[in-house]
């Protein structure tokens, strides 16, 4: 069963978001990495790019499938995980840790109210 951790929030598009003050770290959930399996290429947004919640900001390519990456919150990309670009399997190995994808400086912290709680996300993936 996919691991849903309690310390982060989630989106319907299977990203996790950890908010710390006005910055958020985003990544792909354990459920998403296990569905995609063997991730081999990652395309991340450029640092400095302004993104809107729900906007496609990158691509995750696995051996058999490709998936868009959507921003969970609006803001500016302030850092991306270069290590994961070189070693995409890190997402499979440690989705909530070393496999993090990018950091956003959040425009409006209130937007986070739209995100899913761990319980809501669990419900979502159980329906699949």
């Amino acid at each position, binding site marked *: 069963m996919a691991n849903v951790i309690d310390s982060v929030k989630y989106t319907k598009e299977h990203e996790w978001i950890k908010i710390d003050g006005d910055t958020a770290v985003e990544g792909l959930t354990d459920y998403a990495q296990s569905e995609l399996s*063997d991730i081999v290429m990652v395309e991340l947004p450029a640092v400095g790019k302004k993104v809107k919640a729900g906007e496609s900001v990158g691509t995750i*390519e696995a051996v*058999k499938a*490709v998936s868009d990456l959507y921003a969970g919150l609006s803001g500016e990309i302030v850092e991306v995980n270069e290590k994961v670009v070189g070693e995409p399997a890190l997402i499979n190995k440690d989705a909530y840790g070393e496999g993090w994808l990018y950091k956003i400086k959040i425009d409006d912290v209130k937007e986070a109210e739209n995100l899913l709680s761990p319980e809501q996300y669990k419900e979502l993936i159980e329906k699949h």
Partner: protein
Amino acid sequence: MPKKTPFYEKHVQNNGKIVEFAGFLMPIQFEGIIPEHNTVRSTVGVFDVSHMGEVEIRGSDRMKFVNYITTNDASKLELNQVQYSTMLYPDAGIVDDLLVYNLKDRILLVVNASNSDKDFAWIMENKKYDVEITNRSEEIGQLAVQGPKAEPVTQKLFDLDLSTIKFYHSVETDMKGIPVILSRTGYTGEDGFEIYLESKHAADAWEMVFSAGRDFNIKPIGLGARDTLRFEMRYCLYGNDIDKTTNPLEAGLGWIVKFDKEEFIGMDPLLEIKKRGLRRKLIGFEALTKGIPRHLQEIFAGDEKVGFVTSGTFAPSLTKGIGMGYVNSVHAAIGNKLKVMGKEPIDVEIIKGPFYKHGSRK
């Protein structure tokens, strides 16, 4: 209701991720597509290929009949030799690609799982001469032991010297008491054997193979790696690279079409196509830029759409994207550079032969 192969319980025990494929519950992967792929390239792995269909042809005219429904020349087969072939519709579209086993008292046709029922119906519909045709798909299970260490593993289970079985040859024998057809065949580009047996012996056979392979760290391999392995060898997959709308010549399968035979279904229209020249060709290409080509993406030469991708994947042995697709013949030359329209366009180059060139296949 999807069917289960006689090895289904083994896949569940081995934590296989089960999906429905061609009407069967099959493991798509165990530990992961890439590690499984690498196991087969470097040592040895085992595939459950029981979903494949088997049609048995008996009777005094069996060779004449098989030569009539297939494009390769089955009459050239030695006893126990195996041949890759196709069956065509009267318009030269492909019914299926298959293996033809010329056994002592019968010919066995091994067909794709997804086409098994259709193929059997097609063969029955075209039945002529003195032949008896039986669909044995339900009763036969099959394991493929593949990889550079396949021979030392498999040898432990047989008294006869396996080095005497040449590539694309078979033997009817027994594996520690279980009657089997053992053939040196496979879909991976590596050396290996395929073992056909009655389903009731499946559980025993699985245990035997895995205990024989223990010293080599033998592992179960899922359908995901089966696809990446075949793809790196540029073997066609029915439903993707070939189907009823494609003919064997444009698919690069001219080498298994023998026009000097007396007759086969689809022969005249195919000869006509050959004389007229091919409008399009199935090409193999490697990505020069980042990205992985995917099924049905369009292929462009400059601003002109010239074809589409039939199969695309990440090649674990080459660590880059590779693809196959049909393009207009004028754009199909080796070395030609084209663009595949992914989310971002991918530059690709047409290559010759298999993508992976270091297989242990004999």
